[in-house]
């Protein structure tokens, strides 16, 4: 049984309410931080814990905090990015829905560390019911003196707001999120300046994922040294994984980083294998924008070593034979799934969600979607496959924000690992409309 830090009390009845949460050790980190630690000490503790951002990019949270500019007389903001819209990722929703006070506790401790007196939670519009849960929890926190003026008599004031977005994927990009929070069209900003220097309303701002902020709570409670013992050397702590696809038991799991992928897919405690006794065909380990892995590269790396659920092991082999941990959206495909159709589906998503600001992403995502539509519907030809490869090479790295990369990577990886399946769609258009390619020729089965 792996150690649980975030979801330890998730099954306690009524943990959504303040009293139950408090009785199970809630708000201890706030007490500890405000009474015994200086803000700088909290930042250092998080830096020592080597916590990596849980939103997808895996940038060290402590380092992000240390970049925050601190000019005199200018307010600073902490913004929680709850605009979780990556296909295959639903961990933040689970966390906020089941144990909202954990996020609020993390927000108070983190805001204290950063010296922010106003903090925002930006939540996606589709999570309207979660907004109500959070609002209720915030009201309880205010009523019990954890928010507002002079918290715990320490002289520290904090106001916390929840703002719903309109449900755009692009608003999960931190600068687009800030634009949206300011009430403007959610277009990503040019960087530099980074939000740490010029963010919300032109003031220094830190934007963190829900899970990163929640992870601050156990780090302060147990201390960075204890936290470092969990997980692997380069990936400390625990991570929420949203497992979906053709699994016996999909759902949100908290794992210690460093669990083997095989154990996670087939272990009794976790996903319990592929549903209906089928064989695994492919897996996307970190949300739709990371490269797909064919089944011979899921549990073993290209060099034959065991693959683990950690930042470094999943990206072993680079994009040629590896992938990324990303946001932890673990999507599994069985032998009946069509990779071309799935790639088209993702391309359609990115074409729909591109903000349309910079030309490679605006035109390129739409183009890829149309070409993939033709391939999937039996109207493609061989040069389309090469064309796709060339388009995504021209989008990748040439855009303002990472959405262009996120749109290009899954297409590039699907062609890299499943080129034969694309070609089969071209050579057998009629058959491709009626049945799936299956596992034929895709390396040897497990």
């Amino acid at each position: 049984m792996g150690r649980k830090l975030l979801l330890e009390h998730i099954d306690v009845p009524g943990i959504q309410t303040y009293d139950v949460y408090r009785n199970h050790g809630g708000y201890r980190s706030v007490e500890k931080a405000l009474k015994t630690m200086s803000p700088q000490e909290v930042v250092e503790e998080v830096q020592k814990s080597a916590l990596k951002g849980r939103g997808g990019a895996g940038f060290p949270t402590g380092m992000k905090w240390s970049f925050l500019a601190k000019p005199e007389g200018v307010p600073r903001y902490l913004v929680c990015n709850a605009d979780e819209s990556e296909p295959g990722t639903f961990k933040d929703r689970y966390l906020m829905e089941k144990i909202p006070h954990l996020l609020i506790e993390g927000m108070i401790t983190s805001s204290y560390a950063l010296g922010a007196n106003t903090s925002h939670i930006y939540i996606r519009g589709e999570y309207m019911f979660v907004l109500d849960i959070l609002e209720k929890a915030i009201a309880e926190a205010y009523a019990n003196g954890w928010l507002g003026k002079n918290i715990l008599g320490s002289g520290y004031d904090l106001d916390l707001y929840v703002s719903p977005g309109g449900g755009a994927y692009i608003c999960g990009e931190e600068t687009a999120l800030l634009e949206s929070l300011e009430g403007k069209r959610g277009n990503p900003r040019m960087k530099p300046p980074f939000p740490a220097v010029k963010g919300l309303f032109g003031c220094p701002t830190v934007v963190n994922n829900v899970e990163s902020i929640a992870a601050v709570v156990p780090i302060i409670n147990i201390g960075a040294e204890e936290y470092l013992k969990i997980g692997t050397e380069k990936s400390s702590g625990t991570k929420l994984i949203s497992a979906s696809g053709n699994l016996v038991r999909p759902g949100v799991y908290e794992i210690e980083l460093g669990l083997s992928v095989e154990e996670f897919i087939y272990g009794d405690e976790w996903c319990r294998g592929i549903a209906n006794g089928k064989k695994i065909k492919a897996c996307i380990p970190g949300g739709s924008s990371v490269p797909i892995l064919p089944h011979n590269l899921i549990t073993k790396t290209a060099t034959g070593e065991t693959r683990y659920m950690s930042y470094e092991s999943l990206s072993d082999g680079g994009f040629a034979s590896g992938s990324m941990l990303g946001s932890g959206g673990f999507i599994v495909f069985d032998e009946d799934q069509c990779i071309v159709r799935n790639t088209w589906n993702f391309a359609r998503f990115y074409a729909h969600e591109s903000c349309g600001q910079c030309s490679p992403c605006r035109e390129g995502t739409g183009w890829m979607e149309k070409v993939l539509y033709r391939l999937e519907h039996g109207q493609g030809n061989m040069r389309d496959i090469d064309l796709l490869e060339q388009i995504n090479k021209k989008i990748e790295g040439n855009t303002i924000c990472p959405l262009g990369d996120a749109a290009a990577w899954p297409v590039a990886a699907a062609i890299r690992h499943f080129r034969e399946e694309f070609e089969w769609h071209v050579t057998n258009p009629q058959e491709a409309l009626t049945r799936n390619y299956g596992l034929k020729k895709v390396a040897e089965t497990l």
Partner: protein
Amino acid sequence: MVKVTIDDVVIEVEPGTTILNAARQAGGDIVPPAMCYYSKLEGSGGKCRTCLVEVAAGSEKDPRPMPKLVASCSTPVMDGMIVKNKTSERVHENRGAVTEFLLINHPLDCPVCDQAGECKLQDLAFEHGSSKTRYEEPRRTHEPIDIGNTIKLNQDRCILCYRCVYVGNQLCDSRVHGVMHRGEHAEISTYIENSIDNDFSGNMIDVCPVGALTDKTFRFKSRVWFLKPMNASCECTKCGGNAVVWMFGNQIYRVTARKDEYGEVQTIDGKTAWICNECRYDKKEVSKWNIEGPMKVDKHSVISQGHYDKPNPLNDSTKNLK
């Protein structure tokens, strides 16, 4: 002052200058093309990605190259930075790709487009475009609409540079048009047709790099290269009254602001010489203008053909042939 090398040209510029502006200070063909950046409009730039350049060395202190190509219009120079523009194969390749992206949904209706001859996209396509298209899907189309009583919007030709949006924000009392929808469905539009009604709205036409926004008083009247642009001035209380009148014989066909070599409105006496709508649309008689003399036109521009250059370029090329 910081020292920066762009394509083997060393220049010293003020700290905080962007790579593009540093290149413009040096001038010549090391200047990257810019479709969306407009130095007179605050906040513009970064969107079209045609000005991408390669940074071979970040700075004196940290000489590592930057992994990605950077937008030269928004990346500030550092001391000792080495930038590659026309000397970089990667830049050339990616600029071609951006040109292709900008053209896949473009109607290519240059023969009937009023912007032809002074269109930035035409220049870009001439230099970096391919003669064939790989785009086999139907192009997206829109009906041209009136966004003001003097401005026609042809959304098909728009490259979404956002320049006219910044004009609405920064020159007009209030902005009544903007970008609607998302991704490839994004378009410039107004909620109510004909709603743009402001004394300086005509400058949207001048800043538009393509033929998306055109002057309704000039549409389909003449090709620009048949007209003779003359610098002219008038007494105007709203604007400086410094403009260019485009003449055919003794007749004024249209009035535009004075532009520099990068297609941007010039700065005259420390002020950006935007012109008001009265000067632009209502003064089409020669008697209302004090004509100063012919406008300087780049000799490579189609507009200069047959107007100013004494030696015919044809003669030069025949000399080279022998």
